[in-house]
């Protein structure tokens, strides 16, 4: 041993082909132009929200090429679906996307119910809508705080967490947990809401409306914030179609598509959901769409609370834990906070499903990043990444 070399600790040489890159860096460098800087963003960089890694080729401050590298939070959820019975697998759905577990609960429970022909009682359908909308608000709030933090504003996330705390208190009453919510059962929901549950929601709606006004004054109308987002990262309809982007990104691009209305499930068709659309298709438009969606969710909550009927919350012949799916295939999709959440189940009639495929909206939404970031400056690429509302556990599954 000659001692530790502080100048060149890993013995890296400048010779081509001997970089300190791993497999993905080497693969990325093959197409790089000589003299450009290859930069690794993540997987621990705060702006990459957890464990996303993005390789970028920079010419000065301009992004020539970008390639997200996934898999740092991959848990093989689809394999788990094949080795567990549907009943055992249901709690996994709270873990696929920890910010929007109710949408995933609904996608899987809905797929099983559709395939098996299980009826859901009326009251349970309304409770599902209430839980899903509360969860959507909560997910958008965290996105709002984190997005503003990406752009350099640290305070707003603390306000967002104050609201989330109230929402967690509400959802905890019926689901029993604060993060990986597992509220749905095949043929209904886990438990009925008590008087306190409904009272807290009724109090939350006007409170949140007031807070949204404060958000406008605090962040939305801030001139630095607007300059940072307006005109940055336009994503038009064609881009969304080619990459399969859904959710707020698609609606900001001016397409009036929301799974809740386009392919109605539950009782959404009776609630006349307002769907905000037609904003400018840049980062600011995507920001506004999500704030407007919080407002829309509050309206849906009000309507659901006004019309929720009495009755059971679980169908009388609800499946037991050993329940076997009949042979067949089914595709069921719901509108999550980030876009269309889909679940494709193929069953051969055995104890466990034959194949479970989970369609994560974040996966398709992130795949357009490479094209959207091309030619922007690095700081704008971070704004674009933030405006996609990524939750990496969902992308990686």
């Amino acid at each position: 041993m000659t001692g530790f070399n502080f100048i060149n600790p890993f013995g890296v040489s400048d010779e081509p082909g001997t970089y300190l890159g791993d497999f993905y860096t080497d693969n990325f460098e093959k197409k790089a132009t000589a003299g450009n800087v290859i930069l690794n963003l993540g997987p621990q960089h705060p702006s990459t929200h957890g464990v996303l890694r993005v390789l970028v080729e920079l010419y000065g401050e301009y992004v020539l090429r970008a390639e997200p590298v996934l898999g740092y939070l991959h848990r093989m959820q689809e394999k788990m679906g094949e080795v567990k019975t549907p009943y055992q697998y249901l709690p996994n759905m709270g873990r696929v996307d920890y910010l929007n577990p109710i949408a995933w609960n609904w996608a899987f429970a809905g797929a099983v119910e559709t395939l098996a022909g299980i009826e859901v009682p009326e009251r349970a359908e309304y409770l599902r809508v209430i839980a899903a909308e509360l969860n959507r608000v909560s997910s958008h709030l965290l996105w709002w705080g984190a997005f503003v933090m990406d752009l350099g504003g640290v305070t707003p996330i603390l306000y967002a967490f104050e609201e989330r705390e109230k929402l967690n208190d509400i959802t905890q009453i019926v689901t029993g947990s604060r993060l990986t919510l597992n509220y749905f059962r095949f043929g209904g929901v886990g438990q009925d809401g008590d008087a306190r549950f409904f009272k807290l929601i009724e109090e939350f709606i006007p409170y949140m409306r007031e807070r949204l006004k404060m958000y406008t004054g605090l962040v939305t109308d801030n001139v630095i914030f607007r300059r940072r987002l307006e005109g940055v990262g336009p994503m038009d309809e064609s881009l969304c179609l080619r990459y399969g982007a859904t959710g707020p990104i698609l609606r900001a691009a001016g397409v009036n598509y929301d799974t809740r209305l386009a392919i109605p499930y539950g009782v959404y068709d009776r609630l006349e959901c307002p769907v905000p659309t037609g904003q400018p298709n840049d980062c600011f438009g995507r920001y506004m769409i999500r704030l407007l969606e919080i407002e829309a969710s509050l309206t849906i909550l009000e309507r659901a609370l006004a019309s929720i009927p009495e009755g059971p919350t679980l169908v009388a012949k609800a499946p037991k834990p050993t329940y076997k799916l009949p042979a067949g295939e089914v595709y069921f999709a719901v509108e999550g906070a980030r876009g269309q959440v889909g679940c494709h189940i193929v069953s051969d009639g055995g104890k466990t499903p034959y194949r479970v495929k989970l369609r994560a909206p974040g996966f398709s939404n992130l795949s357009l990043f490479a094209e959207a970031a091309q030619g922007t400056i690095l700081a704008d690429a971070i704004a674009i990444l933030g405006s996609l509302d990524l939750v990496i556990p969902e992308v990686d599954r």
Partner: protein
Amino acid sequence: MSDATRALSEGVKDLGALAVYRPDFGKQGLRLSAFLPGEALSRAAQFLREKGFTLLDVSTAEFQEGFLVTYHFDSFAEPCRLALRVLLEDKAKPTVPSVYPIFQGAEWHERESYDFFGVIFEGNPNLVPLLLPHDLPGPPPLRKKPDALASFAALGLFGEAEWISPGWPYAPAAAAPDAGEGAPQ
């Protein structure tokens, strides 16, 4: 079946489909599904692209008959979820053309299937592991053991067939008598 779906069904048939199914939307969540030969896939994707469809996902599964690659499409203008399936009978080297040139979003979906099943998508610009480590030992993790393989034709998984190309051997059990007449063997 609505007129729009019927037109799509005819269109897919003209593109060289092997079988066209008419699923029950209330039970399967699909309006239309069709088996295509691999070489017709790009034409079919182009046909759907021109009609304003988008690629939702690529869902592969292994059966006794081979690897079944299912492409789910939907239209934002007129929701009509449909599935195009390509059966890859060569299990040693399952290969299918990539739809990347038409739907760029397919790149990642195809890489995911490559990770999990080892299906090779010819024409994918960056067919390297996406979710799994590049040096993962062993066979692709979602392949099944031979005794665990099911037969989709015997189970009739995809519902009632509307039309089957003569000679296509994987007719669902219920429609077998019909197809038997047209089949050469």
